């Protein structure tokens, strides 16, 4: 009888533990994001190449993109951004439809600033490149994406002492829409995923969905 009671107690604790583990949300959106504003209906969105940074959490040493599925992450970010933008009825500006002699160098020079642009920070040095893009079409806005992956120690359990650790790896995605004409930040969002996942993982896809959740639908003129 005593054994049965103890068995039930252990089972109940295990169920509680499992329940708690399942209810811990690994994905967080930043509360500090800029509130969604209405975007002019004529705005055409130019999706920049996403900037990725893989780093070791302790030393900030940069890890090679190629060994961390960098190209697959870039493809996923680009295709998702295009889908989200089109779903909201905005026009995506295809680079081929613009003067590439002006566009390509401007985009190349903007790319290193994507870590700041995607967080809604427009450095002075980036403004001239934005102006170059605006000279092609003043209704253009750039969509900057920055994915910062920190690779840290993983989970750990010492069966003798009962000491446990959870993974320290995180993935932080920043996205922002910036008007090329005046460098005004039209929209920005930030999502933190406390896990290290593949580009096709459902947690990563959920992070992408959350990142674009606050982008307002185009207001029909």
């Amino acid at each position, binding site marked *: 009888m005593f054994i049965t009671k103890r068995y039930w107690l252990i089972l109940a*604790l*295990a169920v509680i*533990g*499992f329940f*708690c*583990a399942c209810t*811990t949300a690994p994905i*967080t959106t*930043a*509360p500090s994001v800029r509130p969604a504003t209405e975007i002019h209906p004529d705005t055409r969105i130019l999706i920049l190449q996403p900037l990725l940074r893989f780093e070791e*959490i*302790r*030393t*900030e040493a940069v890890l090679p993109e190629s060994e961390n599925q960098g190209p697959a992450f870039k493809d996923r970010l680009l295709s998702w951004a295009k889908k989200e933008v089109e779903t909201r009825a905005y026009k995506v500006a295809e680079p081929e439809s613009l003067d590439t002699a002006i566009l390509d160098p401007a985009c190349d020079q903007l790319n290193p600033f994507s*870590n*700041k642009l995607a967080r809604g*920070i427009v450095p002075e040095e980036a403004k001239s490149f934005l102006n170059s893009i605006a000279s092609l079409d003043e209704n253009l806005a750039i969509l900057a994406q920055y994915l910062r992956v920190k690779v*840290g*120690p993983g989970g*750990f*359990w010492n069966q003798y002492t*009962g*000491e*446990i*650790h*959870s993974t*320290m790896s*995180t993935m*932080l995605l920043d996205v922002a829409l910036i008007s090329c004409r005046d460098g005004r930040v039209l929209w920005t969002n*930030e999502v*933190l995923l*406390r896990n290290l996942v593949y580009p096709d993982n459902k947690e990563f896809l959920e992070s992408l969905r959350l990142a674009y959740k606050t982008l307002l639908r185009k207001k029909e003129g």
Partner: protein
Amino acid sequence: MESRTGRLFKWAFLATLFFSVSCAVPLKPPIFLSPGFEFTSIDRIVVLPAVDLRVEKKINVNLDKQITGATEKIIRNKGYRTSLGNTMGEVGAVIEEDLKDAKPEWIKRLGPPDARWVMVVCLIDVATTLTFGSTGNAEVSGYMYDKETGVMVWKDKGIGQAGQGGLAGMLMKGLMDEEAIGSAMGNLLASVPKRK
């Protein structure tokens, strides 16, 4: 002929030596140390208010006590003269990029005007997880600047992990963030050498 007491002392000495060598904490190399910079050249370090750079700010952290105060205490225990700077100076709100890519003009406006060596510690992240037990993770970064020359002289990162399994661990969830931050602070400042 060696006496028994002599042998005992010899073994005790060797055991103590072995123990002290194995327990000595090696100095962690920092992520960045300015070429030619010597910690011995510091007369006083002014610890500026901690900066909260977290994306998720669900956990309440006493920045003054757990970050700024802890920094000042650890540095003081290493033999440096320290003081708390109550202001970030004329730089306004600080973001990570300001600290990482600090320009000389910006550094010179950081902290109290009379300070030379200023240290800023940022809380990057802190999280706790409840599983069958509980865990805590914390990440901090630190920067030290020489205002006179307008250069960054030291930069490092600290991470801390805490956790305990079982029912006792689950009950301790509220303490995990503090423990993880404390551990991260120790890890961060391990690259600052003791002042002789």
